[in-house]
């Protein structure tokens, strides 16, 4: 047995997970080759056909599960897999190889798939070239049904009953959406930062996760026993009984604590000890998270990242207005009378930029993304606005526009929204007189001109993840600079103050929906800077509401005033650490488990 080993990384989603490692890797595309005796060829063909049938049943059953769990729009990709599997263009070449070369089916499947995948990859159309990955997946399922065990990726389904920890180089948003959540209890990745999408999804799914773990892939092997400590950012390989015991105790403590926090969270809006109401809403990406919003006692949804409707569909397809309206309407109805802020597609940047934008961009994060893309692709945007307006009567809808860099974009969106409203009303569909329209303040130019934007919108929402990234010129997913990503940097704090003052002068509400709000110390600071509405991953809502009930706005304001006089993020962080000892006793935590 391997000796116990601990590796450090960035903690991104709290909790402890103990399970077996499954490596989520770019996988082998060859299988062992065997030459057959001529009389064995018909039997091999039959064996291949049976594997195709059982693979087909598996894929259809996955499609049904996904449709039931997340909705039919997420299952489309699996129906496409089923069609690929039965396609003569795939089955034909496999059978031909088995017969003409007298080789085993595993090898024939791998070789035929490799050839087809290569042809797909060479296609000029990125949308279609991406299908190579799906074809690759299908070939692997067939190989597994043939008993070929050289494929790590698919072991996820094989480890019956065992809790799984995914070990990966990096997880993309679409990987993360497709994690089988009933089996996977945590993950660790070698790359990625605290605010990468995999990290955000991990928090929303409640999966303990650690990212940016150096040497992870060379240290952890398939099927090793692994502990992911998502609070302290440690991954353990083959921990001994003593360490496992410490984690078991901590997990039991955390479960008790979480239960009591949840019970307090659901009773209503948190009011500080000096009588100021602080709204704490949830950020969600999938309609299936509505259950979490209610369970964890969030005061509505502060940010529904609608682009995941599109990203999770797997084939970069925009659902039509009716099916989008059904999804939005369902979320609004289930959460009514709580407000639900739906952000229009924030595509581009790192989220499907090439697929959507249709061209390679040298710096996609500075490219055609968010509202810029929506204004450049008005049909797609109008379809979404139509769906939002159709759904609006179901609850308290507010529409938020991402990546605004100046007031002119808001004016153009308002004009389109009015046109779409008139069209929908003309079709005899009931729509409200007006739906609140807000601007996301996440680009420095928007923060600096918040006083010019505020009069033209109904509300402002600070997006501190991107605001920090753009203000400090730091890519938060790049581990060589991710330690420079500091939302407590004086530059970011000054911009927040500016936005709060602009909103106050225009008598418009301002909320903050970055991950920063989920950090207890930074939350205290933000209250002191004048923010009264927050939004974060649903599972951190109970802790933040508990803190909100413990603190006073006057203490927070004193801390914020002191913080604004400091010169570096390190000084701000040191001040908050000191103040937290007295002001945030609820979050003092037990010692980390260490070797």
């Amino acid at each position, binding site marked *: 047995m391997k000796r116990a080993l601990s590796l450090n990384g960035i903690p991104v989603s709290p909790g402890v997970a103990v399970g077996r490692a499954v490596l989520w890797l770019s996988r082998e595309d060859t299988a062992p080759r065997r030459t057959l005796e001529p009389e064995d060829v018909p039997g091999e063909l039959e064996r291949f056909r049976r594997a195709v049938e059982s693979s087909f049943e598996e894929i259809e059953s996955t499609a049904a599960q996904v449709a039931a769990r997340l909705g039919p729009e997420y299952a*489309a990709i699996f*129906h*496409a897999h089923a*069609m*690929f599997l039965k*396609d*003569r*263009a*795939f089955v034909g070449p496999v059978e031909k190889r088995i017969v003409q070369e007298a080789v085993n089916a595993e090898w024939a499947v791998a070789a035929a798939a490799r050839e*087809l995948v290569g*042809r*797909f990859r060479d*296609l*000029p*159309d990125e*949308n*279609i070239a991406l*299908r190579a990955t799906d*074809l690759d997946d299908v070939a692997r399922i067939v190989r597994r049904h043939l008993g070929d065990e050289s494929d790590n990726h698919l072991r996820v389904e094989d480890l019956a009953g065992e809790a799984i920890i995914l070990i990966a180089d990096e997880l993309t948003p679409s990987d993360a959406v497709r994690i089988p959540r009933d089996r996977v209890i945590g993950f660790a990745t070698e790359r990625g930062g605290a605010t990468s999408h995999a990290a955000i999804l991990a928090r929303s799914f409640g999966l303990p996760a650690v990212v940016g773990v150096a040497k992870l892939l060379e240290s952890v092997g398939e099927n090793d026993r692994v502990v992911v400590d998502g609070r302290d950012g440690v991954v353990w390989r083959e921990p001994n009984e003593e360490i496992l015991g410490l984690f078991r105790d901590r997990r039991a403590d955390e479960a008790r604590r979480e239960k009591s926090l949840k019970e307090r969270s659901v009773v209503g809006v948190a009011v500080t000890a000096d009588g100021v109401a602080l709204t704490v809403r949830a950020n969600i990406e999938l309609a299936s998270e509505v259950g979490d919003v209610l369970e964890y006692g969030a005061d509505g949804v502060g940010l529904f990242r609608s682009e995941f409707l599109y990203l999770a569909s797997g*084939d*970069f*397809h*925009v659902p*039509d*207005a009716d099916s989008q309206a059904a999804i939005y309407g369902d979320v609004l109805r289930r959460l009514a009378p709580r407000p639900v802020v739906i952000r229009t597609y924030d595509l581009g940047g790192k989220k499907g930029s090439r697929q959507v934008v249709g061209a390679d961009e040298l710096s996609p994060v500075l490219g055609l993304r968010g509202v810029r893309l929506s204004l450049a692709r008005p*049909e*797609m945007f109008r*379809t979404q606005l139509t769906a939002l307006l159709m759904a609006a009567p179901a609850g308290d809808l507010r529409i938020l526009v991402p990546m605004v860099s100046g007031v002119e974009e808001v004016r153009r969106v308002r004009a389109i929204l009015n046109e779409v409203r008139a069209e929908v009303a003309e079709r005899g569909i009931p729509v409200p007189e007006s739906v609140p329209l807000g601007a996301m303040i996440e680009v420095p130019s928007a923060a600096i001109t918040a006083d010019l934007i505020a009069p033209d919108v109904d509300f402002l929402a600070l997006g501190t993840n991107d605001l920090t990234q753009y203000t400090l010129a730091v890519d938060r997913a790049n581990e060589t600079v991710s330690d420079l990503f500091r939302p407590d940097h004086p530059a970011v704090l000054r911009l927040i103050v500016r936005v709060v003052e602009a909103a106050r002068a225009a008598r418009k509400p301002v909320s903050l929906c970055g991950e920063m709000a989920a950090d207890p110390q930074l939350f205290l600071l933000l209250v002191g800077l004048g923010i009264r509405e927050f939004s974060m991953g649903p599972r951190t809502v109970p802790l933040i509401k508990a803190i909100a009930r413990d603190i006073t706005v006057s203490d927070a304001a004193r801390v914020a005033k002191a913080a604004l006089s400091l010169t570096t993020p390190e000084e701000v962080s040191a001040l908050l650490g000191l103040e937290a000892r007295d002001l945030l006793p609820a979050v003092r935590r037990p010692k980390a488990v260490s070797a």
Partner: protein
Amino acid sequence: MIEETLILKNRLGLHARAAAKLVHAAAGFSSRLTLTRDGDEVDAKSILGLLLLAASRGTSLLLRAEGPDEAAAVTAVKELVERRFDESE
């Protein structure tokens, strides 16, 4: 045998979802159906074949049908293409 030239009008061209619809439409007929683009001929009942045509908006495709229900098959496929695969945009 019937031949008909089709021009793709939907924004995304013959992408995965459109190709799947075309296969479903073609599979209902017993006639042999093929689509040809610049000399490359593929089976219209094969989604992989259709995708490998990499046909974007504006592409001209030659539909060939041969068999007992060839006329109905051509009409069905042609209508689907002209309806822009029932896509919303």
